[in-house]
């Protein structure tokens, strides 16, 4: 740093000389001298070298690194629910597709290979109009309708027979 005499000789208003400014920021006597010649220079004295934060540089750096680590972990955690959500969505979509596919597959008339052929009484099949109850045997035995479809489900034994009737003209609470 330059000496006081050198400073006073070199000082000029609105100076940008780094050596002069360095002295100004370190010497109160010369600050007073300079401010009485150029008051604009007064606040320039507050500038200068780098400063150390309270608690010291090491503590500051440690704090920053700790916070950065916390933020990074938080960001990772924030990403995980998205992944989980995506996975759940994929599973749900797969389930929906499976159910829809199997419904479509089952709704079609497809003979099972090796199984006995299903006797179809009428061809007007309405698979989505399934009856609620199929237990009114007397009505079935004497049942005759041109628009109905009666399907007899093949069974192992002869004592029970399952028959499905699809007829929109029948009352719902039959």
């Amino acid at each position, binding site marked *: 740093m330059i000496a006081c005499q050198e400073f006073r000789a070199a000082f000029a208003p609105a100076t940008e000389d780094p050596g002069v400014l360095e002295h100004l920021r370190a010497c109160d006597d010369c*600050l007073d001298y300079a401010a009485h010649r150029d008051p604009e220079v007064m*606040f320039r004295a507050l*500038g200068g070298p780098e400063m150390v934060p309270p608690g010291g*540089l090491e503590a500051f750096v440690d704090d920053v690194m700790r916070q950065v680590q916390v933020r990074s972990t938080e960001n990772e955690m924030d990403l995980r629910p998205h992944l989980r959500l995506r996975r759940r969505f994929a599973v749900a979509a797969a389930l929906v597709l499976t159910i829809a596919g199997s419904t479509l597959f089952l709704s079609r008339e497809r003979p099972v290979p090796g199984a006995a052929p299903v006797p179809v009484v009428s061809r007007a099949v309405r698979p989505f109009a399934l009856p609620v109850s199929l237990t009114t045997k007397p009505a079935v035995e004497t049942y005759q309708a041109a628009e109905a479809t009666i399907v007899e489900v093949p069974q192992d034994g002869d004592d029970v027979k399952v028959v499905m009737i699809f007829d929109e003209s029948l009352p719902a609470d039959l």
Partner: protein
Amino acid sequence: MAAELRLMIPTQSVEPDDRELVRTIRQGDAEAFEQLVRRKTGKVYALCYRIIGNSEDAKDIAQLVFIKLWENLEKYDPQYAFDTWLYRMVTNVAIDFMRSRQSRENAVNSNLRLVKTSEEAEQGVVVQRKEVEAVFREVSNVLSPKQKAIFVMREMEDIPSCDIAKILGCRESTVRNHLFNARKLMQEQLRKRYPEYARLWRDR
């Protein structure tokens, strides 16, 4: 013999420049980031302190700047000076903080004013750094956060107007206007609150 001589020559560790450090950090090197923080803390904290005027707040803001730096490092374009980019971040965060603080304090401090008697004012003043610091804290309260940031960068950090314009993303003429207005406002405040300092201008 040649090998022995080589061993005796102290190996100089050449520190990577800012751009190289940033490149290393982008590859996921946390130690390089620590090195960058260590290197820039003095400058960043000093600028924060001079703009904000409170050591604890300045420390918090400086830490926030480094966290933002870590989060936004991908956005840094190496064709520009790293310090310009860093100072832009510092001023943005500090100005935001000042704006929120000003709105809180304005209601409380609007009627407080320290006025010296005319007798004291006529006695003249011995300008000392500690005193000037207190005076600056008082009179700079009238500046807008942006004006204060520009004043600090120009007067205390010795950053040329053209570089301040780059930091703030505005024209150099805008910087000069802000600087002119800041000086004018501060002189007015000096006349009101510290007439003994205002005399320095009168006596010239």
